């Protein structure tokens, strides 16, 4: 990665709007996007990325290459929360360790969308099925996290069965979570209708607005991330280090896997960013219900105020440099 690449990423509208949001909070401007606008923007982004990815998928079809990619994606989404849980247990109680592990095992759709905007701006191709990979990587980590938390609770209760646990609800929270459901549903609609008349009519809404909506959403992300910075003190050095190191490790593992299954430059970068990213929408929504003992000002703050900015500001160009080195341009 050279300075030009880093600068090229910094000087793009989405990133600058993110920085603008950070600045707004830091200089104590009263700029804010009124509730529920942030939620509306994030629903739009999930709809848009899902529908666009689905249409691409309809054009390309399901091949063994696609199947391999999706398989590796699921694998990553199970392996990452599993290994990170044990690292986190060194310092944290089971509930918080499980919630943070789930956070880093799952993915951030907005980080992914920012990376696609980066690829679009640099005219680098990527495949529609990467959206399917993203969709598949949202939920497994939630289940893994809850399983760990439950096992620990059972052990703490001396093996005696604790209060009856509603596994159906965990599944629902993991797989039928509003944002997962919208993403997967839009992907399916796009995949079904991609080759039919009628889907074209949605394009001005679904395809053309997304870069602008992303910029506005990142403005809000900047505002919110900066507000969370104060919570970092509470997180402590261990978790701050975790929030930067683990994404790098996951990126490296992701890159290796991408190399093994022979992904192209664009797809490899997206896979790496998925591995490196941490969830601050779907996972918190599920954890809040499934592991209420866990402290959101740890897991949300780490994902939102550290890993997210790190990934979009430095991660994307850094990972691209690595992808170029390992896989080629």
């Amino acid at each position, binding site marked *: 990665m050279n300075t030009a690449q880093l600068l090229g990423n910094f000087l793009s509208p989405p990133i600058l709007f993110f920085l603008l949001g950070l600045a707004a909070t830091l200089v104590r401007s009263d700029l804010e996007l009124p*509730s*529920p606008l*942030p*939620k509306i923007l*994030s629903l739009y982004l999930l709809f848009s990325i899902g529908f666009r990815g689905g249409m691409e998928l309809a054009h390309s079809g399901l091949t063994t290459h696609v199947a391999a990619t999706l398989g590796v994606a699921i694998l990553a989404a199970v392996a990452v929360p599993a290994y990170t849980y044990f690292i986190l247990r060194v310092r944290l109680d089971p509930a918080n360790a499980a919630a943070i592990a789930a956070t880093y095992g799952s993915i951030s759709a907005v980080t992914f969308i920012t990376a696609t905007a980066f690829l679009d701006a640099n005219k680098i191709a990527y495949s529609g099925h990467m959206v399917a990979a993203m969709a598949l990587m949202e939920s497994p980590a939630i289940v893994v996290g809850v399983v760990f938390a439950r096992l620990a609770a059972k052990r703490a209760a001396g093996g005696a069965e604790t209060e009856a646990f509603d596994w159906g609800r965990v599944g629902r929270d993991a797989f039928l979570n509003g*944002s997962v459901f919208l993403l997967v549903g839009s992907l399916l609609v796009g995949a079904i209708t991609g080759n039919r008349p009628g889907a074209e009519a949605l394009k001005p809404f679904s395809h053309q607005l997304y870069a602008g909506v992303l910029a506005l959403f990142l403005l*809000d*992300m900047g*505002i*919110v991330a900066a*507000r*969370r910075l104060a919570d970092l003190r509470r997180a402590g050095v261990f978790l701050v280090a975790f929030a930067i190191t683990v994404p790098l490790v996951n990126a490296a593992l992701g890159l290796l896997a991408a190399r093994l299954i022979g992904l192209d430059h664009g797809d490899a970068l997206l896979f790496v960013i998925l591995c490196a990213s941490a969830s*601050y*929408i779907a996972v*918190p*929504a599920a954890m*809040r*219900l499934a592991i*209420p003992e866990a*402290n*959101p*000002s740890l897991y*949300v703050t780490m994902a*939102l105020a550290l890993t997210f900015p790190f990934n979009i500001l430095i991660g994307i160009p850094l990972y691209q440099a690595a992808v170029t080195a390992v896989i080629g341009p």
Partner: protein
Amino acid sequence: MQALKKVEIILGAPELPKLQRLIEALGHNYSVFHHVTGRGDRGVRGDDDLTGVFTNICLLVACRAEELPALIEKVRPLLKKTGGLCLVSDAQSVLH
């Protein structure tokens, strides 16, 4: 006018469906105020509304004094598990 107990329950928004089911099971009517933010022992809620799961709601039930204990018994475990506030006060209801 009829003397009633006014029960106000502040809870995290994701708990609302559970709370509603519980209160409907007891046969009470209720009102819900949405998008309540706040600060409690479990930190600040609703400062950043990316998902809506970190805001609170405030649910209001006006019930007869003799119905109060059963209601409280049902609500307490929820409060214990996820935090929140439950205030009870006296009120008169205008009959119509």
